[in-house]
């Protein structure tokens, strides 16, 4: 009940753009891999301190869109992005912008846990060290502890901080990767199917974590699980064949979507 009214209010606000604070705004975003076009004029805004879920059948361009948000597509040979994406009204594709700084503000967690072959401590300290966030060792210790705590991993690893990060279980590794991303104090965290390599218990932990992170961060998450989208997100965007089909409140999306294709996809008719 409470939820519904909150959603209703949000929707009302949606009509007056000014009152909602958008963290990132994507306008007419198109992406090409060489000759092949992967995204067609996507207009998608990401709200601050909100979890936005990207859903859609495989190959529809969810990951591609996600990667445009911190310019990870730059690392792919032959990938070209057109349109305009802003982060707090700065155009992130402006030639003057520093990609390094952008990625410090927009962090990323990947589908497969990818801890570095270093100790747990060094994994978390990696980002802060690169960006010079800690002057003294005590500062670094504090950052590492806070990040691990935010990622809900501190209690499990506090006695083995200097053991290898690759020795953790899959779920722990993924939370370590989240801690690693959190340690740089980004404003936005992008997650590309962060639970697809995890078992249900580890998944539940990560989902819970996403809930908590929402207070401090803006989160965009790609997922194949409708249940997960429904559980963790407030806004959902549906992609199909490189087009943004519909973007709406999660509750509305899963009960009464505006677009027939969304309905079909959620009912499991394709994809």
């Amino acid at each position: 009940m409470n939820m519904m009214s909150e959603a209703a209010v949000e929707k009302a606000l949606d009509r007056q753009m000014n009152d909602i604070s958008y963290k990132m705004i994507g306008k007419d975003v198109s992406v090409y891999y060489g000759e092949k076009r992967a995204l067609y004029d996507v207009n998608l805004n990401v709200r601050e301190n909100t979890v936005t879920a990207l859903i859609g059948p495989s190959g529809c361009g969810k990951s591609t869109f996600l990667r445009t948000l911190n310019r990870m597509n730059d690392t792919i040979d032959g990938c070209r992005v057109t349109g305009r994406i802003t982060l707090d009204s700065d155009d992130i594709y402006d030639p003057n912008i520093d990609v390094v700084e952008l990625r410090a503000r927009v962090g990323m967690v990947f589908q497969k846990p990818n801890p570095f072959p270093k100790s747990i401590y060094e994994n978390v300290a990696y980002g802060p060290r690169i960006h010079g966030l800690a002057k003294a060792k005590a500062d670094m210790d504090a950052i590492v502890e806070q990040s691990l705590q935010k990622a809900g991993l501190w209690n499990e690893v506090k006695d083995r901080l200097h053991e290898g990060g690759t020795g953790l279980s899959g779920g722990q590794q993924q939370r370590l990767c989240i801690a690693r991303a959190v340690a740089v104090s980004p404003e936005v965290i992008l997650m590309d199917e962060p639970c697809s390599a995890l078992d249900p218990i580890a998944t539940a932990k990560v989902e819970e974590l996403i809930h908590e992170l929402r207070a401090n961060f803006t989160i965009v998450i790609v997922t194949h699980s409708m249940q997960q989208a429904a559980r963790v997100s407030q806004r959902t965007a549906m992609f199909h064949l490189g087009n943004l089909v519909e973007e709406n409140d999660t509750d509305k999306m899963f009960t009464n979507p505006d677009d027939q294709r969304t309905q079909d996809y959620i009912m499991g008719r394709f994809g």
Partner: protein
Amino acid sequence: MSISLLLLIIAVIGVAGYLFGSWRANALAGGKLSSLHSRPGYYGSFVAIWSVLPALVVMLVWIIASPIYISSTVRGGFPEEVKATSQAEQNLAYNMIGAISRGLNTLSAEEREAMFADSATARTVLAAKGVPLAADPAPYMLTSADDLNRMTKASGTFLSILVIVAALAGAFVSYRAIAPKFRARNRVEGVMLVSLIAASSIAILTTVGIVASMATEAIHFFNMVPAWEFFFGTTWDPRFAAAGATASSGQFGLIPLLAGTLYIGFVAMLVAVPVGLFAAIYMSEYASRTVRSVAKPLLEVLAGIPTIVYGFFALITVGPFLRDISAQLNGLVTGNYASFIQAQSVLTAGIVMGIMLIPYVSSLSDDIITAVPRALRDGSLGLGATRSETIKRVIMPAALPGIVGALLMTASRAIGETMIVVLAAGVAARMQLNPFEPMTTVTVKIVNQLTGDLEFTSPQTLVAFALGITLFVITLCLNIYALYIVRKYREQYE
């Protein structure tokens, strides 16, 4: 019957066996192939194998055994006074008999008669037929040669009969064995397996054989020179003994050679490792696909240049260049235009060997760096690290064990390298630390000790085998260790 004709006959029997075998299997199946254990072709192959293999084995055994038997019979027929002579003289006699027997085959019946009547004419008669003899043959030789001819001929006939019988018998027996439940496929595959094993054994046995022969010669050497004098001796002075002089008059200290080998290898690695590694990093991390597709093969062309070419590059270009430049430098600083780098020096050999090693380092390291999972790269870049930070802090540490392995393999190449050092390092076996002076290596000394007109019984020559086996053991250990490291590193990402 000639051997090739015999082989042809075996082949024909084999093909026929194949056809009959498949045909019979088909007939047995009566249109229902599922009632057979194997497909008809396997029955055919089974018969073919049984026709060919035993016949070939018989043939091989006969070809090896019959000359031995014939030779011992003929020698057994030598007159007593010949038997009393030395083995070498008997060999000479036997060789002459062999020549006469070849000559005899070309003579007509009358010429034969005439020659047997007067053995003194044999030399001229046979020379006219194109068979030169070293001396006038003794009378018994003519009869022996005749015996030899007779036995060879009989042996040939017997061989033909035996082989054809073996082929036919094999074909017959195996043909009879064909029955629907007969497991022809398993038998055929068994033979296949055995031949595959045989092929790999040849490679392994060759290696073992080489090592064994080196080891035997090395043991001969160590019987003449004590092992500790060789391994711990600091003087290399083999002193080529003049004919007749006592053999064990040289000093065979390994240490100066080993020092030279390691020093030159070290200089080479100093050149090859940074250049090769940087090239690999550029290729794998920075170069665009187009640059990579052109530059990588070009770099690897370096690896295809024969090392002798590097050798004279060192001898003709690099050595004199270093010498002249050192003279200029010396002149500028002291006014004395004497070169302090010799044309043949540790530096020359090391630099050129380093150039040779660059492609090994770069292509091995490139493979290893590329094998670091993309996920690690993305993870680092996604945290806002720059490319060079990513390389320095994530990729290189992850690739390090593999790269160390690659470098060890490269080092073992440097140690075993011969042609460059032969031409560019010099031959003076000295222990010193100045890289501008010539030094020599184990491989150079192996070449030195084995070239020239020497008997293979003096320590001066045999030391080459001791050096060879030492080198072999060193490179083998390096390679095994490198493989071990590389394998351990692979497991990390699987």
